[in-house]
Structures are given as C-alpha cells and as structure tokens.
C-alpha cells in the first residue's frame, strides 16, 4: 500500500516571479547576462554610436537640402541638392516632360492595384487579381508606350530611371512565376519529352550569367532573327530577364513540390481529381505557401538584377544616376548618388520582404 499516491488538491496558476518579466529583466537576460556578455554588449553599443554618428552628421546635420545648383553645397555634408535637382530624370528617364503624367497615372494605378491585392480589408480579391494580371498590364502598356487613343508614342529608348526599373522588375516578376511553375511541373513530369525540355531549359538558363544573357539578347539575337522582325531592345531584355529568373523560380517551386507529402496527391486522386486539379487545388497552393520565402528571395534578387541592363544601354535607375554623375556641373557627388539609389532599392526590397513575412503568418493554418 505504501506505493499508492493520490493527489486531489488542484494547484491554481500563479503569476511568474517578478524578476523574470519587465524591461529590467529583459536587459539583464539579453544584454548583461554575466561579465563577458556585459562587456560585449557595451562594446557593441559603443561601436554603433561611433559608427553611426559621423554618418548622421554627414547625411542629415551637415547636409545641404535646398538649392538648384552645386553652389548651394558648401557646408561639407551631403549634397542632396544634386538628387532634388535631378529627381525628375531619376524617376522618368528621358520621358518627355509634358507626357510624364502618363507615367504618374501608371504609378498610381499600380499602387492602387497592389493595395487592393495586399490589404486584407478590401473586398473582391479575385477581381483584383484579374485586374492586376490582365487589365492593368494592357492599360499600363498603352499609357507608357502610347501610340493610340490620341496619345503620342514614346519609344522605349526614352524610358529610364525608376520607371524603367519598375517596368523590368514587375514584368519579370509577373512573368517568371507562372513560367517557373510550369517548368517545375514539367521537370517532375513522367513524360520524357516534357521532362527533358524542362531540364534543358532550366539548366541552360541557370548556367549562364545574367550579363551574358542580356548581351546575347541585345547583340546576338538580332543576328539570328530575320531583319524584318525589329524587336525592341527593352522587349529583348525583358525576355532575357524573364527566362533567366523563371529557371531560378522553377527550382524554388520544385523544392516546394517535393516538400508536399505524397499522400496529398493520393488523397486527391482517390477523390477522382485529374492531374491539373490535383496540382492546381491541392499541391501547388500548399507548395507555393511553403515557398513564399524562396519566391520572394528570387523576386528581390530579380529586382536588384534589373540594374544590369545598363550594360546594354538601357538607363535604369542606377544607370541614369551614374550618367548624371558624369555631368560636368555635378562632378564629385557620387556618394550622394549611390546612397540615393541604394535607398530606393532598399525600400522596395524591404517592403517585399516584410509583405512576405506578413503573408506567411496570414496563411499559416496550424500544420
């Protein structure tokens, strides 16, 4: 009988001890836990202050903000006047100034579409997706390129700056994802021809540097196609970027497809679903959800890679800032120029990164 224990008194939940919660406890457990930790924390704080103070001094406190020419910059800090004087060119490139409203309208439409898609409160997401993927590109093309509806045409060699960067990135992103999905499915296919075509396509584009791709698109492609077909240089760059990135996308998606247990497809098959329904309704939604970090990573890489088009003579944001740096009126402001470019790229890439984290949390269904 002495092995028997019975406990009938319930234990009420008690609050955690004071020392383990609150800001002081946080500091103690995160920054000053033991002498080594404390020394390292103090060193890190000192390095941050020592490193950031001159940057803030240069970029904000000593900087010149107002003016129209380099005479306004004499204080020794950053000369943001250079950016503001050239701002319109950085955004629109060589787009005729009286027609820039068309670019602005496109930007606004794009922002509205993204907001409609991304903000959970707004209704009719399916309509939003159709508008963004089908209607918006057509409208944007006619707005930017013109040549009909009484709007004068603006040839693509006059496009440039942030506007061109966004055109390259958005077209690349929107086109590379579906092509990548198709390639990934093709690579997993049991049909030998489909499989080999996908594998060869993916391995070819993954194996060559983007610079080579762009060179081939701009220099070599015209040698192979008949001269009557006069492909726009921008279109050729877009095709090159899209194929290049879709090969990467295909490998990201393939990783996602492989992570879905076989039982999912079997259960769908047992319910009588054919291949496309199994993929479209069961496997891909789960795989893409799992692959959000990888997909967004590829998007971010693509966004930054667009600046390589400068080597084929397209003036994206980076190229146009570099061109402005060689203007004899503004020699010597390369730091400001590059900081500005970096900041713009960072804002876009960071937004994508944050949105993907939000999406991951939202789509998590507890498995």
């Amino acid at each position, binding site marked *: 009988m002495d092995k028997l224990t019975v406990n009938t008194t319930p234990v009420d939940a008690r609050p955690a001890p004071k020392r383990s919660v609150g800001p002081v406890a946080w500091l103690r457990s995160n920054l000053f836990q033991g002498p080594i930790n404390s020394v390292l924390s103090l060193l890190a704080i000192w390095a941050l202050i020592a490193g950031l103070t001159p940057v803030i001094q240069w970029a904000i406190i000593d900087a010149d903000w107002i003016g129209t020419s380099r005479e306004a910059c004499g204080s020794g800090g950053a000369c943001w006047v250079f950016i503001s004087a050239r701002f319109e060119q950085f955004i629109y490139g060589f787009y005729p100034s009286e027609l820039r409203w068309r670019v602005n309208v496109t930007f606004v439409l794009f922002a509205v579409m993204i907001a409609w898609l991304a903000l959970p409160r707004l209704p009719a997401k399916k309509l939003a997706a159709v508008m963004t993927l089908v209607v918006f590109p057509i409208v944007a093309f006619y707005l930017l390129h013109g040549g009909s509806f009484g709007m004068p045409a603006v040839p693509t060699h006059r496009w440039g700056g942030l506007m061109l960067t966004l055109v390259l990135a958005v077209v690349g992103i929107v086109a590379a994802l579906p092509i990548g999905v198709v390639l990934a499915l093709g690579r997993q296919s049991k049909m030998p021809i489909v499989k080999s075509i996908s594998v060869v396509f993916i391995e070819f584009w993954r194996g060559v540097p983007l610079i080579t791709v762009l060179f081939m698109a701009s220099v070599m492609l015209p040698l192979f196609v008949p001269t009557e077909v006069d492909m726009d240089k921008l279109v050729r760059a877009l095709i090159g970027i899209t194929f290049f990135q879709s090969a990467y996308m295909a490998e990201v998606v393939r990783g996602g497809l492989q992570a879905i*247990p076989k*039982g*999912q497809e*079997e*259960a*769908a*098959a*047992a*319910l*009588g*679903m*054919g291949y496309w*329904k199994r993929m479209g*309704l*069961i496997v891909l*939604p*789960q795989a893409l*959800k799992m692959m959000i970090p990888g997909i967004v990573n590829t998007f971010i890489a693509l966004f930054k890679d667009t600046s390589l088009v400068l080597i084929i003579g397209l003036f994206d944001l980076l190229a146009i800032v570099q061109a402005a740096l060689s203007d004899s009126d503004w020699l010597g402001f390369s730091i400001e120029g590059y900081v500005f470019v970096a900041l713009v790229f960072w804002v876009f890439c960071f937004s994508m990164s944050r949105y993907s984290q939000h999406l991951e949390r939202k*789509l998590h*269904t*507890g*498995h």
Partner: protein
Amino acid sequence: MTLQTAKTNDTPMVEMHGLNKWYGDFHVLRDIDFTVQRGERIVICGPSGSGKSTLIRCINHLEEHQQGEIVVNGIPMTQDIKRIEQIRHHVGMVFQHFNLFPHLTVLENCSLAPIWVQKKPRREAEALAMQYLERVRIAEQAHKFPGQLSGGQQQRVAIARSLCMHPEVMLFDEPTSALDPEMIKEVLDVMVELAEEGMTMLCVTHEMGFAKTVADRVIFMDQGQIIEENAPEPFFNNPQSERTQLFLSQILGH
C-alpha cells in the same frame, strides 16, 4: 455512360483475377483471386509487408499492377486515365495518415471534390458536406482547419470527405493505426455505423474486435498471397493454416 450499363445489382463490387504486382524485383502481390460482393464487409489482416495495403490500393489504381485483371463495379481497369478516374468516382478511400488537405477548412475538404469533380453548385456541395459531417458528429468543427483537430476528429472528417462523393465501395487503409488509443473508438464507431447502413467495405486493420463484430469475411495475407479467407467466427476460433495461427497468437496473445 456506356460503361455503367453493364452494371446490375448482381455485378460484384470488386473482382480480381490472377493479380500480380512487383515493386522493382520484389514480388509484392502473387496470384490474387478475390471477389467482393455488393454490401459485403471484408477485413484484411496480415503481418507488415504482406501486401494488404498494396492490394486495396490497386482497386483505385493508386498502385499499378503488372499482371491480371481488376473489375470495379462492372468497369474493367485499364491504363486509360479517363477509365481510372471513372472507377475512382465509385471508390472512396480512407488513409492511415488521414491525408486531409491542410490548407483548406474541414468544410472545404469535404466540398472540394463534389464541386470540382462532380460539378455540383457550391451551395449544394456545402449542404451535402454538412450533412456528412453531422453523420460523423463533427459538424461543429466545419470551419476549422485540419491542423486544429485531434487525430480521431481528422479521420472522421476524412471518412466524411470520402462519403461526399457517394462512393459504392469504401477502402480503409489502416484507418486507426496512427491514432492514440482513446481516439480509436470514435473512428471505429463511425465505421460500424457505415457497415450497418450496408456500405461495401474493405478494411485493412488490426482491430480484431471490429473484424469480429462487423466483417462478413476475414482475409489473412502473408508474403503477397491470400493465405486464408473465412467468416470471422471460424477464422478466429479455428484458423486452418499454420501461419494464420501464428499471426493470431501474436496479435491476440498479449
């Protein structure tokens, strides 16, 4: 639907003749001859690796056999994908690991196939799904995701999901093997009810209590062959083959 004209109430639900299957060089099913009549409840048991799961997975072509023929509900199985899908419309399946779709709610899990495969209107499919979810006593969880349910609840949803397609035969592939002991009963209760309503069932299971109360026939498999086939009472009380006796002593002995 010319294929269905051959079907009468006397047509066996499942027929297998001279069925052989290999995984690579491994001969997993050997000369299987086996018929399931309409309304029959059959329990298949045997040691692991004996081919029992493979056998029932051949019936809806989740596994491909290399020799022999399978006729399901009067429809002969061929390589033709349309034919296979048509057979699958008549055959429901419940898996060991439930295989619910984790990105869809319980209700969506059940209404998905009626909407996309049978082309039912969404409202009708959802009403149907609710009806079957009520039958497996889980309707109040309809808007949760599978990941929020216990194993027993998930398996009951999986049964409801299959029933929504109005199958004429249900295949159960070790439906309680992945469950905690206290959840096995809630799933078996649903299966017993289904049997009482006259559903044709093939169950791969080690639940011998279920076999004794529900099965019309118990089949014992070993090394890819059907070793013994009998009504439950003589099967358990008077097993004929030595291997069956050994197997029964091992699973009932503790």
